[in-house]
């Protein structure tokens, strides 16, 4: 089980120039002691295939109820939830329904007493995950 976040390598700095990496600055203490207030991390942006995201990964995500708020949390559990998707069909009078399995994530801060997370707002949909923290920025 890997809880630490690796340090930035030279290649990570190079990759930061690509659109698939973004930097975020941590504000607050809910990820203490691994990440302190003011620390910066490099995030691998969600490429719509989050299969690489695993339990114990640290992710950056949108708050489920306040989409303008970006949070950083650790994934504690992943589940598959069946959802019904309505898609427009070629015929204007009919609609097509499809059942698909969507991944949902239970996220928590490392510092439980100083964190608002899935214990309060529940499981988080996949589309709210911005990306996975790959390393600490220098």
């Amino acid at each position, binding site marked *: 089980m890997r809880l630490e976040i690796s340090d930035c390598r*030279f290649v990570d700095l190079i990759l930061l120039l690509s659109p698939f990496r973004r930097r975020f600055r941590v504000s607050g203490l809910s990820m203490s002691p691994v990440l302190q*207030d003011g620390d910066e991390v490099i995030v691998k942006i969600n490429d719509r295939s989050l299969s690489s995201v695993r339990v114990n990964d640290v992710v950056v995500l949108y708050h489920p109820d306040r989409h303008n708020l970006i949070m950083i949390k650790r994934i504690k559990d992943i589940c598959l939830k069946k959802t019904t998707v309505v898609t427009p069909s070629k015929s204007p009078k009919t609609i097509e329904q499809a059942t698909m399995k969507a991944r949902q994530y239970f996220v928590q801060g490392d510092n439980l007493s100083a964190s608002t997370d899935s214990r309060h707002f529940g499981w988080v949909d996949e589309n709210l995950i911005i990306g996975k923290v790959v390393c600490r920025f220098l």
Partner: protein
Amino acid sequence: MKNKYFLGFSMKLSNLIAQQIKNWFPAQVASAHCDGPCGVYDPASARITAEAVLSMTKKIVGLDAPAPGASPADIVAYNNTLSRFIAIKEEQAQKTKDDLLILWTDYFKPVHLEKYPDLHDTFWKAAKLCSACKVEVSVQHAEELMAAVESIHNMFWSTKDRDVSFYKAS
């Protein structure tokens, strides 16, 4: 040797680049705060723990001590039960205090103080009662704590213009 020199140079170069990036392109903020983001507060958690304090206090008071000449097993069982009751009472009293302090400091705002001038006094006394219930075995203080939690419950929901009746689980 060359490899070591190269690694050192690489680290220095990385640090230099990182500093420049930080200066020129400030990173977006990812919040790692508590409470603020969700804004979900409810005095129910304090009510449940305060009820537990009252319940455990009553159980401690009602617990019969072993009679003189009781078997060692009975004495051990009594000590074990009493210790558990005390441990739970103290834990729940501390949780009640924590929950009340969060409501007091994070939820209630100056605008609420205008409507309830005794807000600070109510919370201060309730927090004191939590401490008293933790330290003592007093049914009276435990009942006063429940009454304080009820008045906080009424105060809290009236700030949201909602009529939520107070109830007990036990």
